[in-house]
């Protein structure tokens, strides 16, 4: 228990995020804890596939590089690290961190490994048998992965037992922050108001640069300084859960009421009911106060008892996507692009290629917003044809038909590009909380 505010930063908002801002946070953020959030919906399913090919793989591909960049300084400053970079293979990730530490001569610390999120064996039976969105039955044969979103409990347990680095697989993003805040301030995790407040801090920080001026700039309307040197955020969290969001002095970007409000509502549906494994958080009465100098106070979140079920991300093989693009310019560019699209569609029909769904866009005209796009006649357009197919062979044919427009299509087509990829669709199911058991193992690095 401590009355001193906890200083907690976010060193990554997704798997491929910049590394330098995390180094800056560690060196100049005066942090107690740094969290790296690196698991998007699909990342863990891809990681499960990687692990199936190689038992030592399946964790975040940038884990080694990130740890090389921050581990020595984080250990020197006694900054604890919490991350879901374990993805589908947290034990192997811990081993990677141990090896980096040995190579860099860093020791005398403990890594905790949180597992239990892999619930594939619960699929189809009395664990979960239906998809939450559509009610469709789960087809066990198509399942590549099924990972339950764990909450703050196992992470808090690891931190209370003195872990310096906590590595998890699938956990809810804000739970990593809530766990660290709760342990620092001695909160009970069933104090729903406090759990709601800690969840708010986690929700605001979890996308890293998205609250410090990243994903915000609109020149002339919303100007942001220093985006190439964007600083990552940290929060100073008081014992009552009130927090000040800020960033390292001298870093690029900005923290204002506007950047915080955008992030508050990011991926939120009903602001009074944000479901996590830890709490039903209520953000509807959150107050945001701009204190100036890139400091913003957030307060007033609340919470209700946590849901009885956990969300499960189910990865399913869902056929292939074949895609091709080619550009046209000058007078009549749009008409040539449209003609090219019609030619590809007719070719696929003539060849009997079985497309489950076919989409033709003109980039520059209607590719992003379809029928809702205003009418324009741009100088250049790019045809994009994408189709979903059952087989890789059909997907390749779609891509090839676009490329063949070079010599067989309308005049002046250039810059053709093709792509063929398997589809790993992510669906959602719900599983009773008591069917999921998590486990924390400890690795001592001497």
């Amino acid at each position, binding site marked *: 228990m401590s009355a001193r505010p906890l200083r907690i930063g976010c060193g990554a908002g997704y798997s491929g995020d910049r590394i330098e801002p995390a180094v800056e946070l560690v060196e100049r953020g005066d942090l107690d804890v740094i969290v790296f959030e690196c698991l998007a*919906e*699909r990342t863990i399913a891809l990681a499960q596939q990687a692990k199936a090919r190689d038992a030592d793989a399946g964790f975040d591909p940038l884990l080694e590089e990130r740890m090389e960049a921050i581990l020595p300084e984080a250990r020197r400053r006694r900054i604890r690290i919490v991350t879901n970079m374990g993805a589908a293979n947290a034990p192997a990730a811990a081993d990677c961190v141990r090896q980096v530490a040995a190579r860099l001569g860093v020791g005398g610390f403990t890594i905790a490994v949180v597992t239990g999120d892999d619930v594939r064996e619960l699929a189809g039976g009395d664990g979960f048998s239906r998809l939450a*969105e559509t009610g469709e039955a789960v087809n066990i044969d198509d399942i590549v992965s099924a990972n339950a979103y764990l909450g703050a409990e196992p992470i808090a347990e690891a931190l209370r037992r003195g872990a310096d680095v906590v590595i998890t697989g699938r956990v809810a993003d804000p739970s990593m922050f809530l766990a660290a805040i709760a342990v620092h301030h001695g909160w009970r995790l069933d104090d729903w108001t406090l759990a709601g407040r800690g969840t708010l801090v986690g929700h605001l920080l979890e996308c890293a640069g998205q609250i410090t001026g990243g*994903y*915000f700039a*609109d020149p002339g*309307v*919303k100007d942001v300084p220093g985006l190439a040197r964007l600083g990552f955020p940290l929060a100073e969290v008081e014992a009552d859960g009130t927090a000040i969001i800020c960033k390292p002095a001298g870093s690029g970007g900005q923290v204002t009421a*506007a950047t915080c*409000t*955008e*992030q*508050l*509502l*990011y*991926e*939120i*549906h*009903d*602001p009074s009911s944000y479901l996590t494994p830890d709490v039903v958080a209520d953000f*509807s*009465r*959150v*107050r*945001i106060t701009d204190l100036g100098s890139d400091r913003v106070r957030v307060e007033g979140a609340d919470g209700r008892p946590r849901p009885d079920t956990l969300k499960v991300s189910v990865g399913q093989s*869902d056929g292939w*996507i074949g895609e091709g693009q080619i550009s046209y310019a000058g007078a009549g560019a749009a008409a040539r692009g449209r003609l090219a699209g019609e030619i590809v569609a007719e070719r696929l029909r003539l060849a009997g290629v079985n497309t489950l*769904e076919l*989409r033709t*866009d003109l*980039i520059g005209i209607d*590719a*992003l*917003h*379809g*029928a*809702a796009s*205003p009418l324009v006649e741009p100088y250049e357009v790019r045809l*994009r044809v*994408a*189709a*979903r197919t059952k087989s890789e062979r059909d997907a390749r044919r779609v891509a090839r038909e676009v490329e063949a427009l070079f010599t067989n299509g309308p005049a002046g087509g250039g810059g053709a590009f093709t792509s063929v990829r398997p*589809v*790993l*669709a*992510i*669906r*959602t199911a719900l599983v009773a909380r008591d069917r999921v058991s998590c486990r924390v193992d400890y690795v001592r690095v001497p």
Partner: protein
Amino acid sequence: MTLRDIAHARTGDKGDICNISLIVFDPRDYPRLAERVTPERVRAHFAGVVQGDITRFELPHLGALNFVMTRALRGGVTRSLALDAHGKSLSSLLLNLEI
């Protein structure tokens, strides 16, 4: 005048559901925003994009509205054929609305 003159916006996605926040720069513009940017107007503006329902949540103390659109992302980022499978750019479509 378009919404971009008085407000800013950010899109988020979860599965096939898209949410777009709409936040005024100046709190004095909030009543006008709440009055004019109705779910019906947004539905008409997003014709052909949103297949499901549009729900509006109001946060007057933040000068913000939050629009939640179901069946808006062609099955969601992991299987959509769309160029912008997340629907990230839909915030710009909303800001293009004439008021």
